[in-house]
């Protein structure tokens, strides 16, 4: 394999259903170890794209794996045996957890002792060794989805396709699974394409964000870029006009952390994070205040000067995009906008409370960022 060959390379991919084109992907590549998140509304074609990439659907176009065709029968089977997929439902088999996780290995003709060792390792990695002899029907939703993930990872796939794997789980369970999935993807170096509804999940896990609409990709790029510079109004409305800044935890005090951002700025945030941890900071535009002079209020711990880049009317409020060394957005009401006499290019003070900064860890290896 030449190093410049992408792991997966798709061109002219189309899927028809009942004579109607439901998916059209002119070009898409997935690099080794890359994690891509697919976001978009229901019916945007996220699941269809995953099934098409996993070669579980009849498609037209080319899907190259390590630069080789995956089209005909044996090549398709060989490809399916080097990839794996997890669905929204765990879809476990009517047997024990052990035998569920062993299924993919048995299909590949692996024998007794090797199976036991590999299943043991995989269960350990997902923290479910104690469930090995439990029947699949006797598991909780979170446990079942863990088993489903373990079953997929047991075959040591090079690519894993994940179709909203956590969307039917409750928030604490989802939180735990997201963290574990991020760790395991990084440990195993498995490339992944994951459909999700949860933007935070996408930000935590993904190197690349891919926004879909009506069977097309409307934007693809690093999460920060997509969130901060949505390609069009649809993407903007879908990803939310959040400010997303990456950085590293520089100082930890009681209950607050200081984050050094990429551009050399410092943000204060409420939360418990480790020193040196790589994080993503989100600030919702409704939490950002604009003022002509540095704000007097001591509670606004984050103050930055910047220039107005763009003002967009959104009905009752305007979205004001400011360049404060990094892009940041604020919602401003029409009277306030007049009072501030804001225009594109004018200087303004941006402030927000430490509690307005949402900090979450970045799970993947920073190699691709």
């Amino acid at each position, binding site marked *: 394999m030449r190093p410049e060959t992408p792991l997966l390379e798709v061109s002219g991919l189309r899927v028809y259903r009942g004579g109607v084109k439901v998916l059209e992907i002119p070009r898409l590549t997935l690099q080794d170890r890359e994690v891509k998140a697919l976001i978009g509304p229901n019916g945007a074609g996220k699941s269809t794209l995953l099934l098409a990439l*996993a070669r579980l659907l009849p498609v037209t176009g080319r899907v190259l794996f390590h630069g080789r065709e995956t089209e005909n029968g044996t090549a398709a*089977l060989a490809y399916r045996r080097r990839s*794996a*997929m997890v669905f929204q439902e765990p879809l476990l088999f009517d047997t024990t957890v052990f035998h569920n996780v062993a*299924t993919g290995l048995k*299909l*590949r003709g692996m024998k007794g002792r090797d199976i036991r060792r590999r299943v043991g390792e995989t269960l350990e990695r997902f923290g479910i060794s104690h469930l090995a002899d439990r029947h699949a029907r*006797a598991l909780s939703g979170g446990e079942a989805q863990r088993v489903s993930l373990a079953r*997929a990872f047991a075959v040591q796939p090079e690519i894993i396709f994940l179709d909203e794997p956590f969307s039917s789980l409750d928030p604490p369970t989802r939180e735990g699974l997201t963290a574990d999935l991020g760790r395991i993807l990084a440990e195993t170096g498995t490339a992944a394409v994951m459909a999700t509804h949860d933007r935070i999940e996408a930000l935590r896990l993904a190197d690349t964000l891919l926004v879909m609409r009506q069977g097309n990709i409307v934007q693809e790029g690093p999460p920060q870029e997509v969130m901060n510079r949505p390609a069009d109004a649809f993407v903007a409305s879908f990803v939310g006009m959040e400010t997303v800044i990456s950085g590293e935890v520089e100082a930890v005090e009681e209950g607050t952390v200081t984050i050094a951002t990429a551009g050399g700025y410092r943000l204060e945030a409420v939360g418990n994070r480790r020193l040196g941890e790589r994080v993503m900071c989100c600030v919702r535009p409704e939490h950002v205040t604009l003022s002509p002079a540095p704000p007097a209020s001591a509670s606004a711990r984050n103050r930055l000067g910047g220039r107005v880049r763009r003002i967009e009317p959104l009905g009752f409020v305007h979205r004001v995009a400011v360049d404060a060394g990094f892009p940041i957005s604020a919602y401003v009401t029409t009277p306030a906008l007049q009072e501030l006499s804001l225009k594109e290019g004018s200087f303004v003070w941006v402030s927000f409370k430490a509690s307005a900064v949402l900090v979450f860890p970045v799970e993947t290896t920073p190699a691709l960022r």
Partner: protein
Amino acid sequence: MDMILDGILKALCLLVTLDAEVRDITLLSLAVSSSATLVSLVVGVTVATAVALTEFPGKRLLISLINTGMGLPPVVVGLFVSIMLWRNGPFGFLGILYTPLAMVIAQALIATPIVTGVSLAALQHLPKDLRLQILALGATRRQMVWILMKEARLPLLAAAMAGFGGVISEVGASIMVGGNIKGYTRVLTTATVMETGRGNFEVAIALSVILLLVAFAVNACLTWIQQRRRPR
């Protein structure tokens, strides 16, 4: 009242002493109906799998035809098989009318739609993404079908029981294509019909009790399988 009581006593007597004729009739019943069920399982499960796993125009029509076939009247099947196997019929040259083989053929025709219908429902009841999940785990098509059948094993077993229950208790076709020949094609149901006609109620009751016991055993197995459901 005495007649019934006598009948039951006689029946018990026949059962306990293991009357040779009754024993042979019972064994033939079991042999013919088991063979027919086996044939219907091979055909029925294969057809059900093919129908469940492929999309084609007219699929719904075919499914309703199969479901209609589940209520196929045995006498109609008996008539059809008789015509086919008649001396100058299309398969008359085989010379198998009025043999146990003809009965197996007729009963298999009755059981096949039952087995197909129940199996099809079982396979269609599996989650629709399960097939894709199995393929995604690296299964060949054959491995995928095998896993699907394992997943549907309890309802498939129920299909077998339903098929067997349908043919062991059937009389019309057996009498038409078997002829109720003593010591050759006489089975529990045809013998019961004959003995009742002759007024030999004791023997008829004995045969009925055995038939009921067989039916009970089949149903007990079915119920046991259904009740064995694990926690969900």
